[in-house]
């Protein structure tokens, strides 16, 4: 590890912390309809309500909110599916790309509607510009806005007293898209264009190489997709190589900027939470817990990638950092990023639900891979995807206060709301759905022939490829161990099921908790009330996360990356 690498990490965490309060306050004003909107956007907002027949002041119960959300996304999935299947007949297809195959089209449609962006295809050779812009990019906006909307509904549950409603899904979706995602994306796209990211509708460019050969350079409307890909926690790249591609992420500066885009809303929502419940310290407590987990993960991953790879050392390869090279485990990493930036990007990508990559996670050291998987397995609660990170963390908070209540023999409370059987049942349901999809699907894939045909290698690393894929899908992350051949009906359909379940079946109990909490009265704090804004609670929360995540996933990690690490340390990689 180098001091420059640690300065990068510290600068990044500092920048996220600096943005948290102003952006958190802005989001709170958006969702409270407290914002004097720019005239143009306000006209657009009202026009959307009129066209769609939405009463902006009409609130919904959690059940109605959930039905609205589910119906909206089912229509979105069907539309994106149809767009891909018919893209050869539609305009904006200068390369004349064929229709996407049915199982791949369904996988992709569910992938982007669930904010996962798992890509079993190479974008530049599979999707037309119309599919990329009207399909992928639109779903990136809408799925990101949905995650934030669900988190806001849950925050209203904590904030409201004896209420029967948790907001209006259509209004939340519209305002978050118009006032939060769109403006930031416009600015971010321009910043990316200024750094060399293409934005064009022209067909691919043909170039003559230095050797005199001819090469087709794929490009297109990249910058606009790149901005929302990062901001919404979606992560689906225009190119197969994602943010490792120089047209998506040309410089170290753009890479740093992209990292900020991924974390900025997740971090800011902790402050929105504090503001909505009337105590910003509550938000900072969650921010602290997230930061501690993040720095612990960065230490392991950066340490692993900056040190020498024993398998390469035995071949006499120089891996020491010097003026000539970044050093460390550079397999699968871009020279312009090096191990520090690659490790930081991988941590941010898997801690959030983004899944964008600027290096190949498959080539990370085994324990680094284990940490990346652990980030997703504990629910991507370290800042997390926009909204989904916060509501995932609040589920764990509910479990933590329940455990604390059991220890002292009091009915658990959080922010003046009693946490009772209903909330615990729903929190456990939401927390168990993702592991059920991950471990269940992996168990099926590693015994059936079509599943066994996917991994590029046998042994623990091959198992890790399968485990990573289903973890990424069910946690709606979208990144991959790239060795897995997943573009076949078995993987396309089982991964689609994992993405669907990991998103929508988790959202339902979260909204249910919002509804039950909103209906409750607030209990005044007493001397027996557990303070939830201090270090004591942060430690309790971290312990709950580690124990819950460890008990659920440690056995699977032992069979994959841990076994691979031990084999590597003993001098022989397993077959």
């Amino acid at each position, binding site marked *: 590890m180098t001091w420059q690498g640690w300065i990068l990490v510290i600068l990044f965490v500092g920048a996220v912390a600096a943005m948290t309060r102003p952006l958190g306050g802005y989001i709170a004003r958006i969702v409270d309809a407290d914002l004097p909107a720019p005239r143009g956007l306000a006209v657009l907002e009202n026009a959307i309500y009129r066209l769609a027949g939405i009463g902006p002041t009409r609130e919904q119960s959690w*059940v109605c909110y*959930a*039905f609205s959300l*589910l119906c909206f996304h*089912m229509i979105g*999935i*069907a539309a994106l*599916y149809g767009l891909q*299947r018919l893209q050869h007949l539609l305009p904006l297809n200068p390369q004349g790309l064929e229709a996407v195959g*049915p*199982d791949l*089209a*369904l996988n992709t449609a*569910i992938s982007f509607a669930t904010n996962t962006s798992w890509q079993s295809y190479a974008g530049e050779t599979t999707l037309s510009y119309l599919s990329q812009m009207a399909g992928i990019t639109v779903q990136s906006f809408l799925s990101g806005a949905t995650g934030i909307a669900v988190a806001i509904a849950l925050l209203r549950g904590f904030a409201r007293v*004896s209420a029967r409603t948790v907001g209006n899904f259509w209004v939340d979706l519209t305002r978050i898209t118009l006032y939060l995602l769109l403006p930031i994306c416009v600015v971010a796209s321009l910043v990316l264009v200024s750094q060399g990211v293409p934005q064009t509708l022209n067909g691919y460019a043909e170039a003559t190489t230095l050797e005199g050969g001819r090469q087709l350079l794929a490009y297109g409307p990249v910058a606009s997709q790149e901005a929302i890909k990062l901001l919404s926690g979606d992560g689906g790249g225009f190119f197969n190589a994602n943010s490792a591609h120089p047209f998506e992420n040309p410089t170290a500066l753009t890479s740093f900027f992209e990292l900020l885009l991924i974390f900025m809303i997740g971090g800011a929502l902790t402050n929105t939470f504090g503001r909505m419940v009337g105590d910003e310290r509550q938000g900072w407590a969650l921010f602290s817990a997230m930061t501690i987990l993040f720095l612990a993960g960065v230490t392991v991953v950066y340490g692993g990638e900056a040190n020498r790879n024993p398998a390469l050392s035995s071949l006499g390869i120089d891996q020491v950092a010097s003026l000539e090279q970044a050093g460390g485990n550079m397999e699968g990493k871009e020279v312009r990023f090096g191990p520090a930036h690659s490790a930081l990007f991988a941590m941010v990508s898997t801690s959030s639900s983004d899944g964008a990559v600027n290096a190949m996670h498959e080539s990370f050291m085994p324990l680094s891979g284990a940490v990346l998987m652990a980030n997703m397995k504990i629910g991507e609660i370290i800042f997390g995807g926009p909204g989904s990170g916060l509501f995932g963390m609040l589920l764990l908070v509910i479990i933590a206060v329940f455990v604390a209540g059991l220890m002292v023999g009091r009915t658990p409370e959080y922010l003046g*709301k*009693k946490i*009772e*059987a*209903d909330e615990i*049942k*729903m929190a456990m*349901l939401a927390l168990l759905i993702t592991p059920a999809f991950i471990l269940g699907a992996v168990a099926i894939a590693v015994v059936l022939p079509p599943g066994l045909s996917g991994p590029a290698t046998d042994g623990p690393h091959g198992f890790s490829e399968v485990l990573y894929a289903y973890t990424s899908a069910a946690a709606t992350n979208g990144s991959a161990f790239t060795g897995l051949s997943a573009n076949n009906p078995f993987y396309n*359909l089982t991964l689609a*099921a994992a993405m*669907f379940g990991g998103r*929508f*079946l988790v959202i*339902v*109990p979260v909204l*249910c908790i919002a*509804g*039950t909490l909103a*209906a*409750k*009265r607030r*209990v005044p704090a007493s001397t027996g009330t557990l303070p939830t804004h201090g270090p004591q609670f942060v430690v309790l929360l971290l312990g709950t996360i580690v124990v819950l995540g460890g008990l659920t996933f440690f056995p699977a990690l032992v069979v994959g990356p841990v076994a691979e690490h031990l084999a590597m340390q003993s001098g022989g990689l397993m077959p």
Partner: protein
Amino acid sequence: MIDLALLLLLALGFAAATGLVRLCERLVAHEPASRSDAP
């Protein structure tokens, strides 16, 4: 034909999700202590 089968699969997923909404609604359809006037 495959398109129809896959869209049917999607409809099944939708049915499962809406079924879960109804199940959750039923599970919490009672008056917990903190919502009632009971001490």
